[in-house]
């Protein structure tokens, strides 16, 4: 059986005036998977989502989304997708119930009132159902946003930073809802600033940088690319450079400093580097070592290495 892709783009380009936002974006999102789209600010994530959701026409390139050509058959694409996020919001002047009824009607759902009630219940919004959405807390608003995308099950759901600014409990609620969705076969394209979120939810990760794909793979694959993360915490700022010299020699990669925490770190693919050896070498160099660790890298580490900036 051949893999089918819910989102497949080739060479997508988009520029705003003289500023290129997408410079040949090739994406392949497997049907039924969660794809995490990551990248530093300005990498083109938002533009990519706006193009793939028919909000912007690409200047060049082609894409199929939910089985239809993005440019030639945008209306069919819109029947297969749903978009939730900072730039595709519910109406704050309507109540939660009115919002869901409206979206259900526009999607030609049979029994829009029942569907609205069902979704309000599922997302724990029944009590607030008849209040204006503008009065909702951040977490409630996101849940309503997500519910509005699910009035009719979409083939592809675009989630744009679904948990930015949410407390951990609300965040877990959203994550749970996303997992249930994918269990039903919906494909999710997720953009997020939280690498932990991508780690938790995504089957595949696409790292974007300057309008292109910089790296793709599963979270485990991306981390494996970089082996393990070596870290040394020292007694004071004066010892940082000495520790860095040791890490540089052991790993062959350029160490990164965290001056506030008196910490220096590096990535290693050398399987012979063990914790005792690390400690011995640092000690031998006269580094006043307070703590040392050798662990799999987080996506943050990977991200910093690949793009040279924080997410």
């Amino acid at each position, binding site marked *: 059986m051949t893999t089918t892709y819910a989102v497949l783009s080739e060479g997508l380009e988009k520029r705003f005036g003289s500023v290129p936002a997408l410079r040949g974006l090739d994406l392949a999102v497997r049907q039924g998977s969660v794809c995490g789209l990551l990248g530093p600010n300005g990498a083109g994530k938002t533009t990519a989502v706006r193009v793939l959701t028919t*909000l912007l026409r690409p200047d060049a390139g082609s894409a199929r989304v939910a089985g239809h050509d993005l440019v030639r058959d945008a209306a069919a694409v819109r029947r297969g*997708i749903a978009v939730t996020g900072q730039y*595709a919001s519910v109406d704050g*002047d*309507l109540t939660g119930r009115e919002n869901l009824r*409206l979206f259900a009607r*526009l999607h030609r759902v049979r029994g829009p009132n029942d569907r609205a009630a069902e979704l309000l219940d599922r997302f724990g919004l029944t009590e607030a159902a008849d209040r204006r959405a503008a009065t909702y807390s951040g977490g409630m608003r996101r849940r309503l946003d997500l519910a*509005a995308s699910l009035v009719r099950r979409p083939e592809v759901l675009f989630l744009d930073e679904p948990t930015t600014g949410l407390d951990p409990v609300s965040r877990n609620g959203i994550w749970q809802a996303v997992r249930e969705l994918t269990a039903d076969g919906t494909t999710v394209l997720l953009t997020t600033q939280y690498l932990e979120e991508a780690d938790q939810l995504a089957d595949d990760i696409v790292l974007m940088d300057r309008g292109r794909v910089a790296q793709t793979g599963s979270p485990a694959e991306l981390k494996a690319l970089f082996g393990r993360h070596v870290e040394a915490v020292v007694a004071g700022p004066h010892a940082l450079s000495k520790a860095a010299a040791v890490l540089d020699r052991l790993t062959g990669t350029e160490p990164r400093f965290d001056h506030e925490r008196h910490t220096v770190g590096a990535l290693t693919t050398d399987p012979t580097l063990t914790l005792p050896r690390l400690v011995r070498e640092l000690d031998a160099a006269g580094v006043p070592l307070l703590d040392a660790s050798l662990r799999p890298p987080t996506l943050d580490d990977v991200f910093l290495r690949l793009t040279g900036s924080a997410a």
Partner: protein
Amino acid sequence: MSALAYDGAAMVGRQLRRVRNSPGLAVLTQLMPVNMLLFFGYVFGSALAMPGPEYRSFLVPGLLVATAAGGLMTGMFQAAADTHRGVTDRFRTMPVSRAAVPLGQAVADLVVTALGTVPLLLVGLAVGWRVEGSAAGALGAVGLLLLFRFACTTVGIFLGLLTRSEDAAGQLGASSFVLPLLSDAYIPTGNLPGWLRTLAEWNPISAVTTALRELFGNAPVPEGAAWPVAHPVAGSLAWSALLIAVFLPLAVHRYGRG
């Protein structure tokens, strides 16, 4: 077409529910013309050559049209707010008829305007304004008024989709307050210097105001006026048709393009 009717009806329902959910705003909007009727009618009116009762009869149609022209502001602000807050983009990513969103907004606005005109008419009656012509003429006047409102809202929606910013729309909208000042809505244009008179008489507001005064039987068509004012009913229809023909397609296109 049936998709447009269905989606359009859903959008009209949306706009009406919004008004129902925040009735305070609608009430405030209606207070403005009533206040102006009282201030202009009694305070400024006392400085005019026209006797007070006559001026207030002259003023009510002017305020009705000036309020209708406020559709420019309302349409612009709503469209800009929806765009700014991401609601418009949500609709754009959905299988919704492209014309339904702008049209739904303009049609819902007509319903709100029709209801919102009632307080002004009641206060108008209280200060001495009357329908002095035929019932058919009065109905025609209301029809022209709503058509003009629809045209102004259409222009506003296009501008709102263009500016995309609530702040900019608010500023632009506030300055649209001057449009009726440069027309015969509040004063007869006959005494204005030549070029200013021409400008005021080619203001669409003047044609509609004159048409209302004629149809309600409040004041005769002024002599020697420019064509739209000299033939006020035809002038009003022509202005409204022109604005709708230009700006409705522009608004729908702008909405669709994103």
